[in-house]
């Protein structure tokens, strides 16, 4: 149906619509949920004035070139975390899975809208030529799903996992070997033995994209409760868009964020209980605490990297403090 309507698009009202190419970090199966509904809605409401064509992971340009491609206008807009597309800003280390920075997916919009991360992000991207950061939303927690069971920190040693750069950098101290390949290749890479699994997502994504079919175990401990992912656009392209369509695009980004809030939250609990493809394993809290402690050191290291990073770490700490004092249901210490 999209094929047919898109084919008809160029003729609408005899005027050429604004046309954007948006590439998401997500592969085809995941994009069905995390971005496609929002883009379809946008195209429908824009009613031929503007058409966004959606492309999935590495489809037009490889992830490594994504940022540059957006800056040069090869791609008009991007949905991704900053970490995996190596956005050239100091805060990109937080945009993804920053170890133990968040507990729940609602933490992310709160941090951005009430604790000042939004302003910091706008400031950071204002220093980069021709790319505008638009909006951050939250995703799922970061768990391991692997071909071998993980029941102690010892089991992490020598494990080759597909993970985010920052998470990978953090996890190497426990003997994890992070491997980076294109998103859509991860499933086959487990089968060709290049990977022992992933530390990339929650269980919903594992089931949705087929990773649950190639791995056996799911570790219930997570290294972060919610991913931070953003929408970006080429600045020139964004500024050419009339105000009402900009507003519409903002609504659609929010609708994409909202969809993920319930889709992941519901999926995580349901699949742990009712899913039959992955066996759950856990590392006892007493032992896992070493990882939590290591994150404190990691936070300090990152805070020392730049003034802006220091401000972000302070905000994360302040937020965590408030949540802990508030007690259940915010934090159950």
């Amino acid at each position, binding site marked *: 149906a999209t094929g*047919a309507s898109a084919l008809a698009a160029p003729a609408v009202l005899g005027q050429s619509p604004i046309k954007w190419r948006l590439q998401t970090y997500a592969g085809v199966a995941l994009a069905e949920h995390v971005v496609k509904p929002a883009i379809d809605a946008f195209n429908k409401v824009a009613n031929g004035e503007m058409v966004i064509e959606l492309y999935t992971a590495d489809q*037009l340009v490889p*992830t490594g*070139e994504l940022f540059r*491609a957006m800056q*040069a*206008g*090869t791609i008009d807009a991007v949905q991704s975390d900053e970490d995996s597309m190596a956005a050239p800003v100091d805060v990109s280390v937080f945009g993804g899975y920053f170890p133990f920075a968040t507990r729940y997916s609602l933490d992310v919009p709160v941090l951005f809208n009430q604790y000042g991360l939004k302003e910091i992000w706008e400031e950071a991207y204002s220093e980069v030529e021709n790319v505008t950061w638009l909006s951050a939303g939250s995703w799922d927690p970061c768990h391991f799903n692997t071909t071998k069971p993980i029941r102690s920190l010892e089991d992490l040693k020598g494990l080759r996992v597909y993970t985010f750069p920052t998470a990978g950098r953090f996890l190497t101290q426990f003997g994890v070997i992070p491997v980076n390949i294109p998103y859509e290749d991860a499933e086959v890479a487990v089968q*060709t033995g*290049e990977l022992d699994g992933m530390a990339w997502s929650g269980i919903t994504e594992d089931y949705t994209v087929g990773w649950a079919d190639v791995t056996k175990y799911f570790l219930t401990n997570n290294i972060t409760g919610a991913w931070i992912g953003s929408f970006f656009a080429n600045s020139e392209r964004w500024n050419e868009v009339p105000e009402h369509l900009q507003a519409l695009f903002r609504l659609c980004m929010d609708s994409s964020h909202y969809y993920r809030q319930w889709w992941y939250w519901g999926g995580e609990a349901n699949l742990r209980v009712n899913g039959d493809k992955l066996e759950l394993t856990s590392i006892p809290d007493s032992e896992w605490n070493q990882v939590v402690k290591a994150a404190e050191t990691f936070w300090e290291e990152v805070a020392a990297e730049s003034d802006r990073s220091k401000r972000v770490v302070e905000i994360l700490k302040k937020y965590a403090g408030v949540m802990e004092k508030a007690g259940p249901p915010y934090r159950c210490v």
Partner: protein
Amino acid sequence: MSYELIALMMFSTMMLLLLTGQRIYGAIGFVAVASALLLWGDGGSELGFSAAMKLMKWYPLLTLPMFIFMGYMLSESGIADDLYRMFHVWFGPVRGGLAVGTIGLMVVVSAMNGLSVAGMAIGASIALPELLRRGYDKIMVTGVIQAGSSLGILVPPSVVLVLYGMIARQPIGQLWLAGAVPGLVMAGLFVIYILIRCALQPKLGPVLPKEERQVSWGEKMRLLQAGILPFLIFLSMTGLFVMGYTSLVESSAVGAVAATLAALVKGRLTFKVLHTTVEKTLGISAMFMWIILAALCFGAVFDGLGAVKAIEHLFIDKLGLGPWEIIIMMQISFILMGMFLDDTAMLVIVAPLYVPLVGALGFDLIWYGVLYTITCQIAYMTPPFGYNLFLMRAMAPPEVTLGDIYRSIIPFVIVMVLAMVLLMVFPEMALWLPNKVYGL
């Protein structure tokens, strides 16, 4: 410009440029970057290099130079000489026996490497002169070697199935195993064809003269030892990979090391052999990779200009075909394109358009991978374009003319089409072994 028009323009310009005889990667690459420059808009000029970065991240491509190196090393190592003697002595007393033995040799060579070039090189340099000297019909033997060497991409390991696996996102271990039985069946069909043909026309494949047949049983058994080294090579590469000890790219390196060791053991590893091997390896690897680079660029531009939609639209909405009709049409279009296009380029440009459709129609993508590979074999065999044709022309003695080469493949292509039909009717042929091994 409509999507249909863009699709049509890009394909027809490419075909036209290919017809001029310019290097394939130049023709495909030009159409890609020129279309991007004209139609993409801002940043269109970046797409060529971005394809080069995409290629870099395509990790299974690491197996390509490894397999090519391995293939040349094997053909230089002299392993094939012993093997050939073994098949020669064992099958010699039968009408057409040497041709049957050559198919056997090709199956063993196929099990040791992932492409067809090594089989061609070994077949043309070792088997062809011997067969001709013993009065075998030149058309028959040229066909035997070309068809036999094409098994290289069907019998595991297979580079074509690696590339297919990456595009279709299917497990390579299972794809390889899926190719094994159809590969052996096809070899069996070749043998049956040779035996029947030579029984009807004994002149085509005469029995070995008496004095050559006088080989003692002890000697015959001793010759079987020639199979040990190939078996070890097969085990060190495909075996370790399927059992999960080495990853895919690692196993290709292990295979390359094993082939080098085999040459060392056979006392053939001179500096000259080494140098020839690395020189030829660079030639073939660079040829493949520049084509893949150009094809990846073509694919991205074709996709980003919306032309992919036109193809989907054509198959799903316009033609209104049933699933089997679509599959058959796709195979026919592959064979037609394969006549003119290099099969690597075909894989990188066309498979991304077809494969998702095949999946959406509810077909098993492992099964389709094997079907696709057989199509590639046919494309590889059929004139006017095919690597075997280039190689055969370069390696065959002068009495084998181009016409002979073209004519020689006809019966074997018919056998391949038969194998393809068998596979369509009995998908278990491909799926039984991987299901058994991976316990699905």
